[in-house]
């Protein structure tokens, strides 16, 4: 069974249909890249998965449990359990500025998880090492570069041991010279078989790292396939035009 199965997902703001009966599935260990023009509903889709948005119809089945089934949300305890399997990395990092790097990592596990302080401290050290920021443990986010902030945000999400990580344009707010250090970390996660959904404009990354690419336009998936299919042999005119726009 697919790890995530989404069927006929619908969402609208007043009269604007943002997601128009979207269906797709994500398998464990997938790296799914979602591409598409601005305003096509990419963020709304990711945010619906972690319940930052409520949808108006359809189903989301995640790791065998329904987040929402035919437009009906599960009961709060189940929702909490299901959403806790997902981590999210935001375009603007959303680090907590009042906490140091280490505190950013450790706050949620300390409050939410049943782990000992020692375990949590060991894990934050390990993850900061992984994203190459151990020397910055006691710094505040204000003193970090954008690339460093995003790597902290990734480590913070990993602290909760998510089954899947969602990335919403993780490098879009970064200066071009800082995107690589973030993409590098994401690439490493992919190599470690982390399941990921990545909304991105980094076509090179989508091509190299993702095993599936989906093109979203105007609230609906226009085309989906392997990176080769989407980037080298797009079938749909809109996909072609969009890819061409990136001068591949």
């Amino acid at each position, binding site marked *: 069974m697919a790890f995530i199965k989404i069927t006929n997902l619908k969402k609208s703001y007043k009269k604007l249909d943002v997601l128009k009966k979207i269906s797709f599935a994500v398998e464990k260990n997938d790296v799914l890249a979602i591409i598409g023009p601005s305003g096509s509903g990419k963020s709304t889709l990711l945010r619906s998965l*972690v319940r930052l948005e409520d949808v108006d119809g359809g189903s989301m089945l995640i790791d065998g449990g329904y987040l929402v089934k035919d437009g009906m949300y599960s009961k709060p305890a189940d929702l909490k359990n299901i959403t806790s399997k997902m981590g999210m990395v935001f375009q603007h990092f959303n680090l*907590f500025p009042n906490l140091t790097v280490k505190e950013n990592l450790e706050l949620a596990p300390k409050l939410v998880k049943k782990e000992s302080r020692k375990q949590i401290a060991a894990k934050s050290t390990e993850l900061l090492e992984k994203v190459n920021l151990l020397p910055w443990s006691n710094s*505040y986010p204000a003193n970090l570069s954008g690339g460093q902030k995003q790597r902290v945000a990734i480590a*913070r999400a990993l602290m*909760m041991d998510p089954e899947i990580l969602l990335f919403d344009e993780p490098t879009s707010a970064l200066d071009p010279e800082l995107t690589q250090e973030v993409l590098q970390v994401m690439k490493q996660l992919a190599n470690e078989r982390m399941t990921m959904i990545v909304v991105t404009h980094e076509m090179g990354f989508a091509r190299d790292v993702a095993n599936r690419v989906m093109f979203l336009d105007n609230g609906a998936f226009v085309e989906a396939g392997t990176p080769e299919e989407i980037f080298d042999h797009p079938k749909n005119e809109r996909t072609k035009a969009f890819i061409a726009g990136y001068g591949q």
Partner: protein
Amino acid sequence: MSLDYIISVVKPMLQGAQMTVLLFFIAIIVSIPLGFLLTLAAKSSFKPLAWLAQTYIYVVRGTPLLLQLLIICFGLPMLPVVGPYLVFDRFVAACIGFIINYAAYFAEIFRGGLLGIDKGQYEAAQVLGLNKWQTMTRIILPQMFRIALPAVANESVTLIKDTALLYAVAVPELLHYAQAAVNRDFTIMPFFLAALIYLIMTVIMSLIFQQLEKRLRFE
């Protein structure tokens, strides 16, 4: 002007200043948390409560503190039926007045502080599994206080100066003794001494807040 004279004038003034300081601390300690509760009430999704809190803030900020003090000290006891139960010690009445007034100002300051917090902070907290209370106490409040701190400092300095209004409701404080000495000795000196004492208090207050701001820089 002899030193002895200055000492003889300053002594009662310093005693009066104790009232000032006492009022200041009572007002600050009660009105800051009260102000925060008002902020939450004003943002409540329970409309009658939100409306009540907003109206309160609006009315209190829209009318003079002196008038509010006069109403509480001299007006309330004149009310029919309940009046006799509303006669407080002057100082207590003044404290109530200051608390009512300053809570509204602090509420407005904290409201601004909350507006300054990015909604991404709530979202990140939610996705990490924090509940509302944890989000509020660990993420939002510390940031809100940080944003509000300069305004709170300002308001605290104003409060020190506003304590001079005790004079108007006849609670003997700093200014009261200065005025008495001016009338008695026919010299302007006591006023200057009073100004100096106020100045020392406000400078100390500003320094304390400067330190606090430095500590809470999050850098």
